[in-house]
């Protein structure tokens, strides 16, 4: 199930909340688990059993690591078991066919493909398990004593499909006691509505334009259209992804929990280094804490640091999908980050802000071209049109410009922190009428999103490759 659907908003969520708030404290986790399983089974029932088995194994390994905490060898065995099984699952479902295809291409062998559909959320699920077991091993968190609580954590539906990656340490106390209140409900619901609006009203509407370009449903790609198109994609993926995170964070507040933030206005970045501090933050910090730093980070000289950065970004790329374009996308960022680290950042700092913004946006837009097309030849073709096409514009591009200009402008405005500033100003004022007005504003977003969902408008799911 996805948040942006009628069945979630008008059947699943209201029923689930009603039960959740009515039952005594001790049963709240049970409601949560059951709800999560139903939520997940809606379209991805096969993976449930694997998810449950993984939960049992994580829990068992965690407990044993705790039990043998002073016995380094035994402790490590349990860590390895858990890490290996988790990675194996991820590998099997996500990368097996990719590797077979590549071997076939290289050696002209004909190894049959497994053709296993990728279970939705498997990447988020395994990364969460890994963070738990590694943190227990390191002694960063206490191991979970109750399987009931652990199962709640690992199946937690708000983040199971598209993040943020919630580490065990973020929610460990809330698995036991939840901070449920009317204020938290309202706060959470408002955050959820913002996310819903971002996804349904902005991302989906802008995404229609990208969909035309992606499917090749146009007669001729002019320079203008290629730029409008990739801007549309950049806005679509930002509003879709951050909208999902907002919805997840909002739901967590409603349930009396607290997740980490995942996006912080990434498109206002003045460098790529900054961009990655603002984009999918929970993934970046995951790779930092569990890969980059253990590899030595920046403490073992520049060469090793460069190696470490490349490894991390190769993996980041591959995490986004088992295809060469994603890997290229990751490595592209790795290289840019290395260049920035060695000298470019120092130069950038001396330039006027405008140039730094243009520099960052350009590199980000090019990265989205790589991200958007699985077929690498299409990537290069598209970039070529963006920078060297003779056809600056044509009728068709003007048509799309006219049709999508409004929503693109709205998208750009909403990716700037002006709303945050505005909201903070409103929050300071104690005015009943203003509160009523803003409440109706949120309600309007909710109802307009409903209109779009009821009518089966374009509503793609972007994370099936993750």
């Amino acid at each position, binding site marked *: 199930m996805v948040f942006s659907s009628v069945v979630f908003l*008008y059947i699943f969520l209201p029923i689930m909340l009603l039960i959740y708030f009515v039952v005594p404290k001790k049963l709240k986790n049970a409601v949560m688990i059951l709800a999560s399983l139903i939520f997940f089974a809606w*379209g991805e029932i096969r993976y449930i059993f694997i998810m449950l088995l993984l939960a049992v194994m994580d829990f068992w390994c965690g407990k044993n690591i705790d039990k043998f905490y002073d016995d380094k060898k035994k402790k490590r065995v349990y860590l390895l078991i858990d890490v290996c099984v988790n990675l194996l699952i991820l590998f099997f479902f996500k990368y097996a066919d990719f590797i077979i295809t590549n071997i076939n291409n290289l050696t002209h062998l004909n190894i049959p493909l497994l053709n296993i559909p990728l279970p939705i959320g498997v990447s988020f699920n395994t990364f969460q398990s890994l963070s738990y077991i590694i943190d227990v091993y390191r002694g960063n968190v206490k191991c979970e004593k109750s399987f009931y609580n652990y199962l709640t954590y690992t199946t937690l539906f708000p983040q199971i499909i598209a993040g943020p990656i919630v580490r065990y340490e973020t929610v460990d106390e809330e698995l036991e006691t939840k901070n449920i209140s009317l204020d938290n409900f309202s*706060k959470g619901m408002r955050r959820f509505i913002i996310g819903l609006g971002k996804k349904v009203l902005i991302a989906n509407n802008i995404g229609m334009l990208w969909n035309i370009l992606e499917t090749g449903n146009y007669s001729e790609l002019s320079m203008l259209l290629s730029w409008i198109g990739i801007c549309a994609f950049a806005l679509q993926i930002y509003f879709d992804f951050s909208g999902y995170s907002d919805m997840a964070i909002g739901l967590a507040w409603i349930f009396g929990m607290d997740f980490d933030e995942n996006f912080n206005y990434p498109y206002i970045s003045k460098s790529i280094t900054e961009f990655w501090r603002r984009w999918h933050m929970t993934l970046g910090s995951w790779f930092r804490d569990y890969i980059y730093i253990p590899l030595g980070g920046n403490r073992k000289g520049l060469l090793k640091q460069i190696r470490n950065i490349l490894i991390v970004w190769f993996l980041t790329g591959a995490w986004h999908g088992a295809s060469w374009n994603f890997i290229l996308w990751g490595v592209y960022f790795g290289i840019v980050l290395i260049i920035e680290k060695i000298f470019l950042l120092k130069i950038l700092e001396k330039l006027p802000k405008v140039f730094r913004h243009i520099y960052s946006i350009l590199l980000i837009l090019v990265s989205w071209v790589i991200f958007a097309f699985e077929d690498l030849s299409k990537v290069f073709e598209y970039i070529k049109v963006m920078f060297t096409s003779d056809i600056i514009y044509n009728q068709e591009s003007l*048509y799309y410009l*006219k049709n999508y*200009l409004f929503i693109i402008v709205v998208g750009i405005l909403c990716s700037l922190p002006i709303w945050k500033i505005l909201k903070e100003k409103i929050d300071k004022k104690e005015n009943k009428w203003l509160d009523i007005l803003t409440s109706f504003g949120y309600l309007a977003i909710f109802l307009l999103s409903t209109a779009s969902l009821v009518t089966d408008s374009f509503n793609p799911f972007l994370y099936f490759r993750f």
Partner: protein
Amino acid sequence: MRDKIFFVIFIATWVLLVMLNFIIKSPEFSEQENRYLATIPKFNFSELVSGEYSEKLDSYINDHFIARNFWLKLNSFISLSTGKTENNGVYIGKDGYLFEKFKYGKEEKENLEKIALAINNFSENIDVPIYFLLVPNSIYINQDKLPDYVSVYDQNEIINEFYSKLNYRIEKINTIYTLKQNKDKNIYFKTDHHMTSDGAYLLYLEFCKSANINPVAISSFKRELVTRSFLGTFDSKAQVPNQIPDEIIVYKNDTNQDVKCNYDGEKYNSIFNEEYLNKKDKYSYFLNGNSANAIIKTKISNGKKLLVIKDSYAHIASQFLCQNYEEVHFLDTRYYRIPISDYIEENKITDVLFLYNVSNILEEVSLRGIK
């Protein structure tokens, strides 16, 4: 305080909508969208595993959401007020004109080639005159009404290319010139993909010219406005707020009012079915909508029998096509699967007319199997 105010406002609305959805029953058929709404899917374990079951359930829930028509209008209103000039694959043109997007790609081209081949083969076994009337669509004839910056594929080129592939036995009728000349006379509906009676009359004239028939003059008919509230298929898709409906006009005379009709065995005494004028699907007023085999018997006795192999563009043309024949037979190859050559012999057909519109024939697969 803020949280309490929001809580009250939001929860009140939300709970109300949720409750209404559980309580109120919705219809099985949507007049506004002109389609049957999804039914509750039957449980099926393998569909549950593949995720198909939940997809079906999703569309059931969406289709039966409370006040669905209101949400449809709201959604298109919002979309159109952001400066969009299309909705759900339909262009919102000038002066109330709607147009379905026209696609002519590789698949369509191939389909047309296959159809030409099949019809050539078919014509070998037929020894009565065969006429082909491929009619362009509103989007081409009325292209000046399209939104700014939209260009449309040259349908004249498509028609000529198709005609060039048909063999000499088939008499080709190109109507583009006449239609362009008369385009300001409302020859197409604005909200529907069909032609109006005035457009159909032009087709009739062109057909008569090719078939050497004396056409009945338009002035000898009684022109009758049968409804002012026709919202056709383009409107069903686009759901444009405040769309001005089309009028349906018919041309009646003694010949087309005194007929015996047989639609797949159902018998009527008129080609006009008043019942449909109170329904959404008002175009079915003509020839009772889609049937595999429709036969009109007139009072004329000249031994001439016309067979029209057609799409629904022929329905509105039936009021004119019956003017010069003892019998007019209509076959829809989507539903009629028996060899047509046999049909021609059995019914002593004297003329065969293919009547299709361009955007429809591009997607028409059943014609490839014509025998």
